């Protein structure tokens, strides 16, 4: 299905989501990478070496959830923009964002799911300066807990307006 639609199924997602216990402990990275492609920048980005070293550069990344602190360093490093950090203790999600206009802290914007459908309003909590990450902003939003594994993009406004 993923190969036809570009949208990971719940089975796909289960393979990259830690168990409930870990999710309730604090922020953790979810690496939504399902292809074996030659790529390794995420390994180098983790200050805690939570992403395992690649024995073969084509392997899918493997995250040691016990080492992951949810710091989000990996979010901007992924060329596929496929890494997100979810925090079930604070109902927060951090995602990569490379569009204009950038939202401001406090803005209420639409949260989009993996099919691009607006599913809930979210509040922008933090906007990490894109210039600090080679033009990739990392945006943290507060949203209803039930959508933490659903929202993967935000809709801010028409940049040409």
């Amino acid at each position, binding site marked *: 299905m993923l190969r036809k639609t570009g949208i990971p199924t719940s089975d796909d997602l289960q393979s990259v989501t830690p168990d409930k216990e870990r999710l309730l402990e604090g922020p953790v990275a979810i690496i939504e990478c399902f292809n074996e492609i030659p790529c390794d920048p995420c390994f180098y980005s983790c200050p805690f070496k939570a992403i395992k070293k690649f024995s073969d550069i084509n392997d899918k990344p493997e995250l040691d959830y016990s080492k992951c602190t949810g710091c989000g360093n990996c979010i901007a490093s992924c060329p596929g923009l496929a890494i997100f950090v979810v925090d079930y203790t604070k109902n927060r999600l951090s995602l990569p964002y*490379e569009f204009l206009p950038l939202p401001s802290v406090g803005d209420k914007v639409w949260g989009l799911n993996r099919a691009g459908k607006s599913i809930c309003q979210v509040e922008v909590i933090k906007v990490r300066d894109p210039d600090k990450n080679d033009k990739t902003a990392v945006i943290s939003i507060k949203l209803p807990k039930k959508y933490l594994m659903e929202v993967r993009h935000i809709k801010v406004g028409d940049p040409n307006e």
Partner: protein
Amino acid sequence: MRINKHPILDFNRGKKITFQYKGQEIKAYQGETIAAALYAAGIKVLKKSNKYQRPRGLFCAIGNCASCYMAVNGIPHVKTCITKVKQDMVVEEETGKGDIID
């Protein structure tokens, strides 16, 4: 239409210049190609095909396809997609197969 703000790129455009096309003065920036400047001015049709007079414009924009030929300062068959604009250049739509000049 030119892009003003871009999330990744900064467009450091050169000096503002103008050139001539069909009696119009077209605004451009130094560093742009003729085809790009015409495109920004909304001019997409650059010539007509020989036999059926079908409108033609850019296709590859890199000098491979010959879809963008125009006469520039009297010189025929100039690849406008890889030729930079110069102040007061005269760009004309060619008719037929172009003319060899002396």
